[in-house]
């Protein structure tokens, strides 16, 4: 075993918060290192230091026993470090191929003039795409791709060049089990060819399954780095959170009520969804499962009034909705946590407090003078951030973009919570959230249901749906293809339904 890379007493702080505190980490050749920690523990920041995105305040880094001081991402790349960022860094106006080769296109000469060699570009891209299992043409423009496909494209982009260290910062947040499995396959291949892999995830089961060694961070400090065998899930959680988590899901307190809050009848939108029938009662948590691209997000957007539909009806509290508009929905206290927090969820440059109170602003304002009660507003934001255990500086001054990924997700949820939603549509609400915070979010979902709200819970993590929901609907190709009540919950059956497979031939990918 050889140590390919190490950090020595690395420290970095932002705005008085020490995100990375005196960390000495070792990365071995031919091994997969799992890195875990709560939201805001400093994982991404540590990786950003390695990847040249930020520069450390103090400490050193050694790459193959030589001092390594990247001034920018290009330096890191030069040194053989590939980095798949937590937030997507794709150029939405360019094709996959162009994204992959943006810093080094293959060219060829025609006469005296050099041209980008589009043929070669396409060929090379196609082979990488096949490797990561993304089945779209190389000249697909990113804009037209779903979040999951984009994440695969991002991975392909990082893998095309021959790196020595590959960093995956939560790469599976938009992937389904199948793509995740494929990704692990790739990671193992990389390891077997002698590369070092760093893998960050909040899905501890995955970490346990794939890592050779595991490092745990808490509040910027490295708590432990040991071989994977010496960790159990409980120990990981204990080290991460600093306490024991008895259960992953809170005890269920909510009871479904008889009255129907939301009724979707025969709703169709050309090319997207067809003949959707769905009803949601007060106090009910309704799960919506499906594979990538099965149309759950589209359905959620239609219900929220963000997109229009061609046929069918939607009833809210028994009243037929005539105008399909966002503001109508908000007036009816429907909330929508988007799966795309960067583009649709947050005002990145605006303070956390202002983000948190954006939806419920009218509550704090005088109708006539429009005057906003600043004190009430920041109190409410403060309260919400405490409930969700937001890890941040001063919420009235810190901008949302300076939060860690998971904490950003909490802000999106807090924003809707303040409006006291009656129907809460959550599209992948726990994506990128740590175990502790997940528990908090589940508790909130449960409490909401307990006071009579209905929750439409969209997730790709089948376990959490089983843990939380009263009922699960399964979607495939824009249609509802299965419904399971709590007593019928069974992971394999639900997955089969999602694949549209008969009971008799279980799919190979399903374990």
């Amino acid at each position, binding site marked *: 075993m050889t140590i390919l890379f190490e950090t020595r007493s690395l420290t970095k702080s932002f705005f*008085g918060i020490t995100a990375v505190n005196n960390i000495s980490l070792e990365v071995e050749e031919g091994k997969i290192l799992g890195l875990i920690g709560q939201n805001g523990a400093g994982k991404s920041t540590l990786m950003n230091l390695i990847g040249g995105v930020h520069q450390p305040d103090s400490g050193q880094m050694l790459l193959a026993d030589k001092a390594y001081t990247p001034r920018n991402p290009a330096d890191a790349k030069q040194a053989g470090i590939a980095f798949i960022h937590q937030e997507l860094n794709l150029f939405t106006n360019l094709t996959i191929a162009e994204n992959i080769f943006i810093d080094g296109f293959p060219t060829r000469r025609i006469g005296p003039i050099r041209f980008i060699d589009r043929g070669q570009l396409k060929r090379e891209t196609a082979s990488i795409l096949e490797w990561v299992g993304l089945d779209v043409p190389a000249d697909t423009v990113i804009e037209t791709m779903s979040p999951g496909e984009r994440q695969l494209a991002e991975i392909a982009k990082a893998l095309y060049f021959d790196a020595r260290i590959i960093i995956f910062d939560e790469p599976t947040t938009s992937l389904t089990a199948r793509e995740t499995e494929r990704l692990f396959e790739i990671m193992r291949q990389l390891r077997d060819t002698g590369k070092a892999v760093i893998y960050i995830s909040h899905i501890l089961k995955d970490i346990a399954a794939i890592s050779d060694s595991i490092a745990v961070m808490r509040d910027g400090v490295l708590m432990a780095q040991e071989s994977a065998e010496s960790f159990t899930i409980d120990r990981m959680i204990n080290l991460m959170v600093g306490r024991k988590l008895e259960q992953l899901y809170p005890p269920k307190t909510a009871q479904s009520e008889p009255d129907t809050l939301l009724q979707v009848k025969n709703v169709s939108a050309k090319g997207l969804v067809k003949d959707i029938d769905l009803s949601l009662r007060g106090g009910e948590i309704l799960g919506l499962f499906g594979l990538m691209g099965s149309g759950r997000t589209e359905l959620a957007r239609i219900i929220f009034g963000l997109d229009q539909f061609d046929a069918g009806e939607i009833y809210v509290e028994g009243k037929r909705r005539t105008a399909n508009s966002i503001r109508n929905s908000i007036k009816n206290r429907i909330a929508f946590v988007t799966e795309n927090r960067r583009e*649709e969820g947050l005002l990145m440059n605006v303070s956390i407090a202002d983000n948190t109170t954006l939806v419920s*602003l009218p509550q704090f304002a005088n109708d006539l003078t429009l005057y906003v009660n600043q004190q009430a507003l920041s109190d409410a934001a403060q309260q919400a951030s405490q409930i969700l255990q937001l890890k941040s500086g001063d919420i009235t001054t810190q901008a949302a973009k300076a939060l860690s990924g998971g904490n950003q997700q909490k802000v999106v949820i807090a924003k809707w919570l303040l409006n006291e939603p009656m129907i809460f549509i959550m599209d992948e609400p726990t994506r990128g959230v740590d175990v502790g915070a997940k528990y908090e979010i589940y508790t909130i979902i449960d409490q909401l249901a307990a006071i009579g709200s209905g929750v439409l819970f969209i997730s790709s993590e089948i376990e959490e749906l089983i843990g939380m929901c009263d009922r699960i609907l399964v979607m495939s190709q824009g249609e509802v293809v299965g419904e399971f009540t709590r007593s019928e919950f069974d992971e394999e059956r639900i997955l089969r339904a999602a694949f549209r497979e008969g009971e008799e031939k279980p799919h190979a990918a399903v374990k």
Partner: protein
Amino acid sequence: MSAIQTEHEPQTLNLKRIKATDLATSGSLSDRLVRWGKKLLLSDYFILIVSIIAYVIAAQFFDRLARPLNMTNQLSNMWPLFAVAIGQTFVLIIAGIDLAQGATIALASVVGAMIMAENLNPDMFDKLPFWGSILTENGGLLAGSPIATPVAVIGMLVSGLLVGLIVGTLITRFNITPFIASLVGFIFFSYFALWLTQSRNISGLPESFVNLGDSGELISVYFGPKLDPEIRRRDILAVVTASTVITLGLAFFAGYLLNRTIFGKHMIAIGTNPRAAEISGVPTRRVITLVYMFSGLCAAVGAILYTARLEIGQPTLGGLNLLLDIIGSCVIGGSSLFGGKGSIKGTFFGVVFFVLLGNILDAAQMSPFVIDAVKGLFILIAALLDYTRTRLVRVEQST
């Protein structure tokens, strides 16, 4: 001026405090200077302070700058520019741009004059489109009537609101980028105003209107000997005029809207991320349209001040040069063309910068052949200093 003076007090207080601590830590003079310089650079009032320091230094060389009358002149020059820039600030905050302001000033000026002008010479005006109906030999629509001025003022404000409504509608309903929508408005209404008067100015505005500008003196000062029987007009300094009151009123209203109301929060949300704002229930279209209407309103207020001081309705008021000064003032004052940033205070400082820069350059009596080159250089330096400031602020905050 009052705004500037009150802001000065904390500054001197800070100075004292620094001195006290310095004594305790026995910092050297250069240390103190560095610290003081840093403090200045980090202040929100940076552009204002730089402008005033530059002005004070320049006044040592060109004593005409220090004359009281010159100072009150500069003050009165700021108000109309500031009034228009307030509207532009709003538009910049929502990541827009309003070129149509240039035309709005012209249109409002002409519309107002067509309502209230007295006596029009038929030789000059009989080719106008509305000759014989709105305009006659006796003047505009309401010539001579006591309600002429108030109606004209309302008419001007309404034309500003209308132009804003049209530009806002192009943006929100027809999905046209603000630059083009307002450019279309700029070209269209510029020539519409010219067509209305066939390029002619309309003079003969009533006294009651003219007094809305800086000839409407509210507080004047005289520094001469006490019992001089004949005070020359030029020795009387108009410190507070109608235009001061109108513009400051507008500024405080805008500041209230921006900083204290839900409307302002919605503006910032739209300027930062329109999609997220929309999904969070912000009525984006309505807010955007209202912001452009407010911008038109501000331009119309500017038109009132300009028209009153020139005493003519003029279809060529405004224009591109003025527009660049206005947007420049906003940007120097901290507004970003990419939205989400901007303040009324900052814009005021930007206006101060542009007005004082013009005054200093004129006072320096540089050859007209080099003055523009120097002006450009100074704009660049100011922008550079401001950038250095924001960078330092960031560094300061992170440690």
